[in-house]
């Protein structure tokens, strides 16, 4: 059995964390180093495993509860059993590398995206991504303060070169599924009503996640043209380039831009001399 002397804090902590992360698998041999820690503990009427299990539960359960809180619709989509199993695997395989939980949910989405079992159900990862951005955007402090006076100073001949900034409180997502309908139905399951038609979720959807005027994050369906314009803005396109993309004129586009400013989707603008496709 490995020994530890009293001057090896690091070694004791290594033994401790080995116990915390050890998962009992039936056909897996128990590593010898797991026998080290119990011999270092004061006698108790509880077994070393029971005592260490208290710390393990605190650690695993707190992270699992966080994931359940962040991804309730994804959990409803895949079922409790699969979600619990996947969360446990994530907590084990993708260690928390920061002393806070601010980015942990985003890493869970990336983990789901790598799971072979979900390869044929891309909407699960898309839903998780949607929920992650809903939560992320809800935490951003945002006060719309678009500078209309500065915009009024821009001459008409310079309009084509204006680039409008998409606010950080906006996120765009598309899917071959009607993710908003699915999200709504799984968030608030409908009461059984035989006369209600089944929702057809197999529809292309374009979604804008944004922070509304109450400071809450919300899902907004948008059409294909708006999707093209908003992703164009996201990619740094100027007004004239957006017009070219959808074969429209600047006046029509400006009317749309005004609506998006009112919604809080656009928070500023800049003038671009000329467009370089490699440097948006």
């Amino acid at each position, binding site marked *: 059995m490995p020994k530890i002397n009293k001057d090896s804090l690091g070694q004791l902590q290594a033994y401790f964390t080995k116990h915390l992360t050890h998962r009992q698998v039936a056909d897996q041999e128990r590593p010898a180093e797991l026998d080290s820690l119990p011999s270092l503990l004061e006698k108790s009427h509880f077994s070393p495993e*029971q005592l260490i299990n208290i710390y393990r539960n605190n650690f695993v359960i707190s992270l699992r509860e966080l994931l359940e809180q962040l991804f309730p619709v994804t959990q409803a989509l895949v079922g409790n059993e699969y979600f619990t199993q996947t969360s446990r695997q994530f907590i084990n395989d993708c260690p928390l590398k920061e002393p806070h939980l601010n980015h942990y949910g985003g890493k869970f989405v990336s983990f789901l995206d790598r799971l072979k079992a979900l390869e044929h159900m891309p909407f699960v990862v898309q839903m998780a991504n949607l929920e992650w951005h809903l939560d992320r955007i809800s935490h951003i402090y945002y006060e719309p303060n678009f500078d209309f006076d500065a915009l009024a100073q821009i001459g008409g001949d310079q309009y084509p070169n204006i680039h409008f900034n998409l606010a950080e409180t906006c996120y765009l997502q598309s899917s071959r599924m009607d993710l908003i309908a699915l999200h709504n139905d799984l968030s608030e399951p409908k009461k059984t009503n035989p006369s209600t038609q089944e929702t057809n979720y197999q529809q292309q959807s374009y979604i804008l996640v944004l922070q509304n005027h109450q400071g809450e994050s919300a899902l907004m369906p948008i059409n294909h043209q708006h999707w093209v314009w908003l992703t164009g803005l996201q990619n740094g396109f100027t007004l004239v380039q957006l017009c070219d993309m959808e074969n429209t004129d600047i006046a029509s586009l400006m009317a749309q831009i005004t609506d998006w400013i009112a919604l809080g989707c656009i928070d500023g603008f800049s003038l671009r001399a000329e467009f370089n496709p490699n440097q948006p």
Partner: protein
Amino acid sequence: MAYQKHMLAGTGIGLRQPHVEHFIHGTPPIGWLEVHSENYLQENSKRRHQLRHIRNDYAVSCHGIGLSLGSSDPLNLNHLKSLKSLFDDIQPSLISEHLSWSSLNGRFYNDLLPLPYTDESLHHMVSQVNQTQESLGREILIENPSSYLAFKHADMSEPELLNQLSQRSGCKLLLDLNNIFVSCSNMNTDPYHYLAVINWNQVAEIHLAGHTVKQLPQGEIRIDTHNNPVCDEVWDMVDAYKDKLQYIPCLIEWDADIPSLEILIAEAKKAQQHLGLTNA
């Protein structure tokens, strides 16, 4: 930012998200507030903005759970930098951390893990606390954790280690009476002996909280869950040490199954009565 001056005195409560709006739109009758530092690290977050607003009306203390001072890993300087930025912004009256560790080799375990109370641990904690205080440019408080196990090769008791740490590093102590009761019950030691050993001149803050009693086949174990009112045995400790405690800021902590603000304020008033700060 210049905040109005507020004294951190009497009883306070831990500020938790369900109650934030009460403090944004009013000034509920409570002496002061404590926040978990890691929940407010993001500068452009809604939470940080709300805290700035609340800080105008209340004295605030920042209680950290992520510095992992007892870990044999080097101090996480990025985290320390984020904390300093938060403290410069919020200007808390007190800053506290724990006599514990929560990370090893860059992996975080989201729990307060136990230290062996050895000379090595003491030297290590003194060094980590010194480095932290130098980086922050101010003193910090160190809190006693709840324990479920003890290590055989201890050189001293927990209160002895805290006294030494405080004496050598100049830090102050945050004494959690619930944690003392939980640890002493689990280790079959006397909480009043603990209170007799501690150097009260160094105690700058008190925590009171509830815990859960879990039944295992061999007997009961107390788990520090912060989801209940303060238990009678802890109130008895408060009564016994009232003369020392009444001059120290005292906090009611409630982190899970969070009740209404009225219940939390009633618990804080109960603390004031036990401390002889108001008439029963």
